[in-house]
């Protein structure tokens, strides 16, 4: 069952083509991420689902029904905004209760629901505070509670964690994932942070210049990027252009290999499919490991190891053919 389906959907702002005929579907209960650089069309996609924008052509199906002309207030989807968009004149309780009050629920129901929503986002009793009296993390949770209390079919999250500091962001990533698993509704999550997308999603759609360039599970997108853009945007990668690939691997296409698949040859007995010599330019200590920048034919490549190496030394790296990914251009 598809909760959301885009069929050749295009969205234009005057001359600017924000979305260029994209098609994809989101399964019920999925944690689906839209990943891409800013201006790639991911937020536009989210706004189309919310109903804040109308497609220039193509269809958007929500729960199987064509929805392009349904106004936002009639859609069974809710949004968590990047800047939270809490109502500044209402306290926490009234912010969370906003949707239920509009639906004219009884006061006792509202009170009960607000309480359970606050429990869900693990917030203590702050119902009388105004948004201006809350921290960023608290605002984030209130915005989440305010959306979830309406029990939407699909929750749309527009870079909800980007304003938080690293530690809080990592905590919220885990928590969001837990909440999604617990209530089992579909999450569509916009982010430009590939780490976030990889660690949270069931599937990722990678956007570039108004197009979806790849859709797949985090493992697929990371291990099998189909284009140079995806290889470069998701995770770190070593790209060998056509001529280098030709001479090194005998493949006349651009090839990608992840840094963790490049091995430092320590022992002459170690056997690799391909071995080649690099010059070490720089070693960067990152805590867990050491990141080496190596150069060959005036191009830079990355590899990891646990030992420090001397700058300028010649280094032999080995790799296996199965880790090589030929890319389409």
């Amino acid at each position, binding site marked *: 069952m598809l909760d959301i389906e885009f069929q050749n959907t295009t969205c234009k702002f005057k001359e600017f083509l924000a979305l260029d005929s994209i098609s994809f579907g989101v399964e019920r209960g999925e944690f689906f991420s839209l990943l891409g650089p800013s201006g790639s069309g991911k937020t536009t996609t989210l706004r189309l689902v*919310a*109903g*804040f924008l109308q497609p220039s052509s193509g269809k958007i199906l929500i729960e199987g029904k064509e929805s392009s002309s349904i*106004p*936002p*207030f009639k859609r069974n*989807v*809710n*949004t968590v*905004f990047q*800047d939270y*968009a809490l*109502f*500044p*004149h209402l306290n926490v309780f009234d912010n969370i209760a*906003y*949707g239920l009050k*509009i*639906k004219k629920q009884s006061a006792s129901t509202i009170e009960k629901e607000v309480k359970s929503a606050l429990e869900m986002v693990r917030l203590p009793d702050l119902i009388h505070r*105004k948004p201006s009296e809350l921290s960023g993390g608290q605002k984030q949770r209130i915005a989440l509670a*305010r*959306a979830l209390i*309406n029990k939407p079919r699909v929750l749309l999250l527009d870079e909800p964690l980007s304003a938080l500091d690293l530690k809080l962001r990592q905590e919220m990533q885990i928590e969001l994932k837990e909440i999604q698993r617990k209530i089992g509704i579909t999450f569509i999550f916009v982010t430009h942070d590939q780490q976030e997308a990889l660690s949270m999603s069931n599937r990722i759609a990678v956007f570039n210049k108004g197009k979806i360039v790849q859709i797949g599970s985090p493992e697929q997108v990371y291990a099998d990027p189909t284009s140079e853009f995806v290889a470069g945007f998701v995770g770190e990668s070593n790209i060998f252009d056509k001529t280098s690939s030709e001479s090194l691997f005998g493949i006349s296409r651009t090839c990608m290999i992840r840094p963790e698949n490049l091995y430092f040859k320590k022992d002459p007995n170690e056997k690799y499919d391909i071995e080649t010599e690099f010059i070490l330019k720089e070693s960067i200590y990152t805590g867990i490991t050491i990141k080496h920048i190596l150069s060959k034919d005036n191009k830079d490549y990355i590899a990891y190891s646990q030992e420090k190496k001397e700058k300028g030394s010649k280094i032999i790296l080995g790799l296996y053919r199965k880790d090589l990914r030929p890319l389409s251009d």
Partner: protein
Amino acid sequence: MWKLYYNKKLTIFLLLLPLLIWLGLVYLGSLFTLLLNSFYRVDDFSGVIVREISLSTFKDLFGQRTNLDIIFRTVAMASSVTITCILIAFPIALFMYNNKNQFLKPILYLGIMLPLWSSYLVKVYAWKLILAKQGIINFFVELTGTQVFLDSLLSIPVIGGTSLSFSYMGIYLVFVYMWLPYMILPIYASLQRIPLNLILASEDLGATPSITFRKIIIPLVVPGIVAGSIFTFSLTLGDYIVPTIIGNSSYFIGMAVYTHQGTAGNIPLAAAFSIVPIIIMLIYLMLAKRIGAFDAI
């Protein structure tokens, strides 16, 4: 060397000093003098100002029926002008806010700002000509044969009069015209300050545009309305030119202050009169704060 003599606090103090002198001496000082004068009194026989602190001037002010009438008349005028300004300014500000037409935008701005650039007296006298018995309004009334309506309007007790330019109605019209920009601009500014995402969030949570308007836009515009009404209300409270030129010679606070400090030579009573708008404004601001008008700022 420089560092040796550099003292951050002293620098800030020196930078602020001219401002503090201005604010402290010239501004607050004169306000204080005003307040002090209102506690002096004028000797009934000699007409000399007695510089002793007493409440007798205030007793005069609030004890005499004519003075109370002046205060009541002024406050009633200021209130009705303010309410009318809100009712007219809100739709205009909303229209400007919603207007996407790039050609119309500067015209709207100019239409509101232009009257503020021209002379105050010129505007009042222009209005006198518009409202006068042989004026523009009468010309059109005669042309359309609607004299009956104007006459019945003017025959309403209290607000009517011999002609529009000699009635409370005329004063009211001119005040509304004069202060309208001061209401439109703050409302427009507060509309513009509402983040678009708040409106989207409201719709997202199931609110129709009309609910969004009532529950989100209006409460967030209230600070702007309060700011605008401070202008319209206090400007009307203190004005003495419009009632002098347009009115039917009934006194307003501003005129009373003008007469008492001038021809009547009763500075203490003039000072006491001018305290009244200040107190009214303070009460007004306290009430506005209590209903939460400034919460969203």
